[in-house]
């Protein structure tokens, strides 16, 4: 039955009589108008009454008809510049979406928004218990609590952006299927949510930093550019993960493990720069230090913690003897009473200078953002399938 009288074939069930019936808004009269206009004559409107046609199909090839009226193919991604413009136009949506999600996240909890502060606090407490007290990795790091908490909060920002981004497309399917908007709004919005979280964590962090005897310095302002660069990096990575995660659920299953491994190699709970195990493994140490998470963590620590800034290798002129002393017993030769010596570890040679770190921070941010955005945009028309 399905083959009988298909639209494109002539002679459907409803004859010409029904077509010429009165009262239809855009009746066949008006329909044959544009169709015949495009004909060779170009003027005659009533050359062809088109009775056999079923009203929905004009004579000329459909593609030409569409082109003549400037209709564009649906489900085709816009050019990249137009896409960026659309995204900018939806900036209020991105921000609104982000805020609304943050608010909704805690509506079920009795403590409500308090969890925004409690979660990072509890996180810090757990890691301090394990790595500071039980495993005692704090040897050789001045002010280990502040050192650890800074690392956890900064890494958490990247970690959560990654994990959420890998699920964002699948989680937002109803929205994607209902409305058209640049899909890049979604990963972008979620990273902004996490940025808000990071800023709230900073309230806790600043309290801990001050409570552990660090002072307020102008270096604190450097936290802002680091945060900006890390956000750009996270956005870029979130684009990549959002696209990969949209295709495969396996990714979001696997990602927590990958991210956890990454955390253990990024110097969140130990200092890559002064770790004894890494002596002599210059290449490995270098690779660990330039990984984006380590770069952003180190820069934040140097900005926020005076003890870190003064103890990191390269902070003082190179002195082989003092450096060797540090590695002989880091807990004993952490800091000298002699202010001219200060931290022993500061007299070691750095693998990457401070300037080098900043260059890596900028490089990672720009590279990841560009690659990620391009990668995400390429599949724009395919999100929400299936």
């Amino acid at each position, binding site marked *: 039955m399905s083959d009988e009288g298909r639209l494109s074939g002539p002679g459907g069930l409803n004859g010409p009589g029904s077509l010429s019936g009165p009262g239809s808004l855009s009746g066949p009269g008006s329909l044959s108008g544009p169709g015949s206009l495009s004909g060779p004559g170009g003027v005659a409107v009533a050359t062809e009454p088109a009775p056999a046609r079923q009203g929905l199909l004009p004579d000329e090839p459909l593609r030409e008809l569409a082109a003549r009226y400037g209709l564009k193919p649906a489900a085709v991604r816009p050019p990249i510049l137009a896409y960026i413009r659309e995204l900018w136009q939806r900036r209020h*949506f991105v921000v609104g979406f982000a805020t609304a999600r943050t608010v909704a996240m805690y509506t079920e909890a009795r403590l409500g928004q308090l969890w925004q502060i409690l979660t990072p606090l509890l996180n810090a407490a757990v890691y301090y218990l394990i790595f500071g007290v039980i495993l005692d990795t704090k040897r050789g790091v001045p002010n280990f609590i502040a050192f650890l908490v800074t690392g956890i909060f900064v890494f958490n920002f990247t970690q959560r952006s990654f994990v959420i981004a890998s699920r964002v497309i699948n989680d937002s399917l109803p929205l994607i299927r209902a409305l*058209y908007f640049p899909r890049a709004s979604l990963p972008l919005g979620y990273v902004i949510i996490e940025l808000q979280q990071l800023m709230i964590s900073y309230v806790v962090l600043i309290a801990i930093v001050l409570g552990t005897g660090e002072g307020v310095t102008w270096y604190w302002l450097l936290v802002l550019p680091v945060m900006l660069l890390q956000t750009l990096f996270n956005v870029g990575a979130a684009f990549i993960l959002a696209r990969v995660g949209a295709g495969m659920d396996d990714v979001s299953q696997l990602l927590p493990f990958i991210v956890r491994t990454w955390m253990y190699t990024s110097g969140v709970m130990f200092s890559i720069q002064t770790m004894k195990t890494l002596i002599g493994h210059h290449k490995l140490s270098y690779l660990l230090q330039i990984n984006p998470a380590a770069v952003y963590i180190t820069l934040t620590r140097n900005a926020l913690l005076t003890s870190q800034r003064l103890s990191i290798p390269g902070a003082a002129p190179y002195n082989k003897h003092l450096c060797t002393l540090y590695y002989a017993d880091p807990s004993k030769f952490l800091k000298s009473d002699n202010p001219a010596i200060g931290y022993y570890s500061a007299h070691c040679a750095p693998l990457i200078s401070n300037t080098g770190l900043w260059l890596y921070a900028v490089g990672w941010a720009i590279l990841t953002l560009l690659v990620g955005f391009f990668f995400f945009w390429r599949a724009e028309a395919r999100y929400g399938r299936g």
Partner: protein
Amino acid sequence: MAEPMVVVDDLHVVYRVYGASGDRGTAATALLRLLKRQRRPSIREVHALQGLSFVAYRGDAVGVIGRNGSGKSTLLRAIAGLLPAEQGSVYTDGHGALLGVNAALLDDLTGDRNVVLGCLAMGMSREEVKERYPHIVEFSGVGDFINLPMRTYSTGMGSRLRFAIASAKSHDVLLIDEALATGDAEFRVKSHARIEELRALAGTVFLVAHNLGEVEATCNRVIWLEKGQIVQAGDDVPGIIDAYLVASGGEPRVREPIKA
């Protein structure tokens, strides 16, 4: 005068369904599959639309009828640009907004937030949202529920609010998939009037509905789909609906004279 708004040219849509096999779905069978180097559990292809062609014009309200699984919703999603075509293409002017029963916006947010976010997502400015907000809430008729999360809404209330949001902006192409089915009588009258307004604003409306009375009252054209192909299409809405009813083993509709 009649300007085409949606041109569907030999459209084919194929769904690829994963995991459609008789696999028992245990970890052991999955491992076995990997060891035997088989591909994903039988990717089945469903040829949902098989070469549709039609043109819809400015001001049209097109009803799409047919049995469950005949490809109605797929057609709407393809027109909305949410499903890429396997072959052929869909040409539209601007992006269509698809409105379906399941198209919840953000369930855990309040209706109020959904209104704002939905409007922003459609590309309105903050001022526009502020301006339209009271109309949307009033039109939806959800009343005090507007301050509660959408997951607490009844099906009818949810679909009313969604319709109110999606129809707040005059889309060039509005695609409605059974969205009105759950509304009450009063809302149907209102939404009917709104669709008429949207049509008058030179948009094109597509309506998928099993309620044929709804289609007949709202649409000036109708497309009857069966197994992904067009059986009939045209302006003779009552005629095609009757033919469809007869083909499904029913009786033609009894039509009462229209009351003013």
